[in-house]
């Protein structure tokens, strides 16, 4: 039987996997699920039927992975239409997308690709976020990316860049704590300082996931955002810091590879709930 959560002060959820449908519907182990919008862009059939059942059961977060908000070219209006249709039909509680690009010249790269953080990129991203919010008629959450390279052209830090997007567009932030950790390690920075430099009030959802570890050409740690492992202890510690700074937030466990049974992911989600409760009760991000 699913255990009711005792200490969460914000909802916790998991990325939805079709193989988990029966377990998900059988109880209340999680408060919400997240689905990738692009996976639901089909005309009919079991994908949409399942999503309708899930939506009746719990809250939904719709997570776009293919809009290419950081793209140098105008947003794909046909894709915006597809997103708007999903939002209208399934009425998700949250809609989020990424600070990244994925399409160019009609080719879709199926990866979240990095951006130089400069004035020109900032203007373009803000223009695209404005258009997205206008089309969806709601505030969207923008997710900080995992990155592996930096650009010689960058003049702004990532937190400064995101803060400026929030200030100019009024969008919220999806703080992916794993991405914050991965990027900090990959670029020799302090992940806590990154989180501290974000506008805490704008954060409206948190992601947690697992990474894989590699080495770069100099032999330094290079972390890869794989969504293929449990959340790392270093990321749990950073999560407590994020909760201490941003308050309890809807928190999602992402897992896309080596996906375990539902109960394992639900237990990670409950751990997030407990952590939020503890940080709130003790006023400290240090684990009891």
């Amino acid at each position, binding site marked *: 039987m699913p255990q009711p959560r005792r200490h969460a002060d914000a909802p916790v959820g998991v990325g939805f996997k079709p193989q988990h449908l029966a377990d998900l519907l059988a109880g209340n182990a999680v408060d919400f699920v997240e689905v990738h919008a692009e996976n639901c862009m089909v*005309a*009919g059939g079991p994908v949409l039927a399942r999503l309708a059942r899930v939506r009746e059961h719990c809250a939904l977060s719709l997570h776009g*992975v293919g809009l290419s908000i950081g793209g140098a070219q105008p947003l794909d209006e046909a894709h915006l239409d597809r997103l708007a249709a999903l939002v209208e039909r399934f009425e998700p509680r949250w809609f989020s997308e990424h600070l990244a690009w994925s399409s160019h*010249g009609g080719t879709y790269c*199926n*990866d979240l*690709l990095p951006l130089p953080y400069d004035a020109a990129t900032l203007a373009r991203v803000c223009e695209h976020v404005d258009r997205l919010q206008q089309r969806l008629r709601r505030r969207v959450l923008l997710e900080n990316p995992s990155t592996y*390279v930096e650009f010689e052209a960058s003049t702004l830090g990532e937190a400064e860049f995101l803060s400026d997007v929030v200030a100019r567009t009024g969008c919220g932030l999806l703080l992916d704590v794993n991405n914050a950790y991965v990027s900090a390690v990959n670029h020799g920075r302090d992940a806590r300082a990154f989180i501290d430099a974000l506008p805490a009030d704008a954060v409206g959802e948190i992601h947690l996931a697992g990474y894989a570890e590699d080495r770069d050409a100099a032999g330094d740690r290079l972390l890869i955002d794989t969504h293929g492992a449990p959340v790392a202890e270093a990321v749990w510690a950073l999560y407590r810091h994020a909760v201490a700074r941003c308050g309890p937030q809807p928190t999602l466990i992402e897992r896309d590879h080596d996906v375990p049974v539902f109960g394992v992911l639900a237990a990670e989600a409950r751990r997030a709930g407990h952590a939020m409760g503890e940080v709130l009760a003790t006023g400290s991000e240090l684990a009891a």
Partner: protein
Amino acid sequence: MTHQADFAAALFDPARPCPSGLRAWNGSDPALRHAVHRNNVVVSLVDALADTFPVVRELVGADFFAAMARDFVCAQPPRSPVLALYGGALPAFIEQFAPAAAVPCLADMARLEHARVRACHAADAPALGATAVAARLARPDALPGARLALHPSASIVVSPHAVVSLWAAHQGSGDEIERVELDRPESALVLREGEDAVVVAIDRPTAHWLQQLAAGAALADAACAVPQLDLAAAFGVLLRHPALTAWEEP
């Protein structure tokens, strides 16, 4: 070339150098870091194709499939962020892919598997049940001019190879794989029944008749176009499977 165009081109072409303008905090070569994206892109798309074409993959083995799929991904990357139907061009690619020539049925197996994915994601539409079909068959005067609409999930696969038996064998639901006579021509009606994309073996005249109907021909014209048609058997397929959404009588 703009920076993003350069970056995107390098993802799909291993011979291209790492894009310029990248750096790493420790001064290390950014090429190895850029390769993370190259790997993400190609592996994720090869994996997507492996999900869509599991029997093609079993027929040639995981390594051969991965190498072929990599070539396909780099030659014909996705044109849309919606990947559900990505790979529709793989059958034609396989036909031109010399190393696959040793498995002549491979392209048609890919057609069959892609038809199943299309069936799975096709629009929902109420199908005419067996009772409704039987009622129309009971009005012979109205039959010759009737026009039938196939369900959005339905498509026809016609092959000179035994792809239907081979596909069934790979599901564990037909003959043993070794016993399938590969040179026997086979055809299938692929459609969604409930939540499942099913593969219904049909004879070739029935397949051609259904193709005529799908193209809008009236029943009599479709039947005349296929001289070997066993009309009773063909109607039997329509009685047993939810393949029709409309049956307009003249």
